[in-house]
């Protein structure tokens, strides 16, 4: 492990944490490639290892958001409790229809959500309708 690699890993850790704090994802999208590129982990080990960082980020980020008044803890716990159903369902469905179909479906869902978010932003930009005549 060379100094440059450590600096790279630390930098991508900070960047992933910043992203997590800003948009509420775990940061794995940056941690996984960081672990592969800078620390030489195999892809499957990187995915597993990034979860350690995600747990830390989620715990501290959730705690900070709670103090800002932005955490609905009961809903968060419910989401965590139901998610294993999805893990099992995802594996079963992937075996049934193939992973490629799932990839494309998720991509489609994400594009639809992106479009809806943009539409929301656009409608929020408009001045209050009450004053329009």
């Amino acid at each position, binding site marked *: 492990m060379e100094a440059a690699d450590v600096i790279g890993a630390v930098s991508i850790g900070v960047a992933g944490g910043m992203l997590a704090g800003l948009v509420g994802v775990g940061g794995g999208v940056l941690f996984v490639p960081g672990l592969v590129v800078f620390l030489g982990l195999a892809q499957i080990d990187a995915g*597993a*290892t990034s*979860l350690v960082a995600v747990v830390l*980020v989620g715990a501290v980020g959730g705690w900070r958001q709670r103090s800002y008044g932005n955490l609905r803890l009961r809903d968060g716990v419910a989401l965590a409790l139901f998610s294993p*159903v999805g893990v099992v369902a995802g594996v079963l469905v992937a075996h049934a229809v193939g992973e490629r179909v799932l990839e494309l479906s998720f991509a489609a869902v994400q*594009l639809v*959500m992106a479009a809806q978010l943009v539409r929301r932003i656009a409608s929020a930009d408009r001045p209050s309708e009450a004053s329009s005549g």
Partner: protein
Amino acid sequence: MADRSRCGAPPVDDRAALLPPQLLRLAVIATAAGAFSALFGVGGGTLIVPLLVLWMGYGEREATGTSLAAIVGIAAVGAVAHGLYGNVHLLEGLLIGVPAVGGVIAGTALQQRVPERAVSAVFAALLVASAVVLVV
């Protein structure tokens, strides 16, 4: 998602039937997030946050805070399961995770200072990027 067909219906008084539909929606969101993270190795936050905003009327900041809390549980189960197979490298995880804690403290603080619409805009860009990665 099946509920999407009712989008055009007049708004229902949410308080009249608060708990079961709410809980059902949370279950559907959690299932999608669990499936996503199990198959693609990264967390379900990219699904949880927009679905909380678009489908449950969350504010952006609330959605991100609640998503982070949910992710702790989801990732912890995954980490333990992978750990049993010996795939977790604790030292490397901490080397990235400890600086990431500094990052998330800064990121959440910064988020309080930007408009919620900006959070949505960044998220929309992230969704498009994620979709592209999935397709390619």
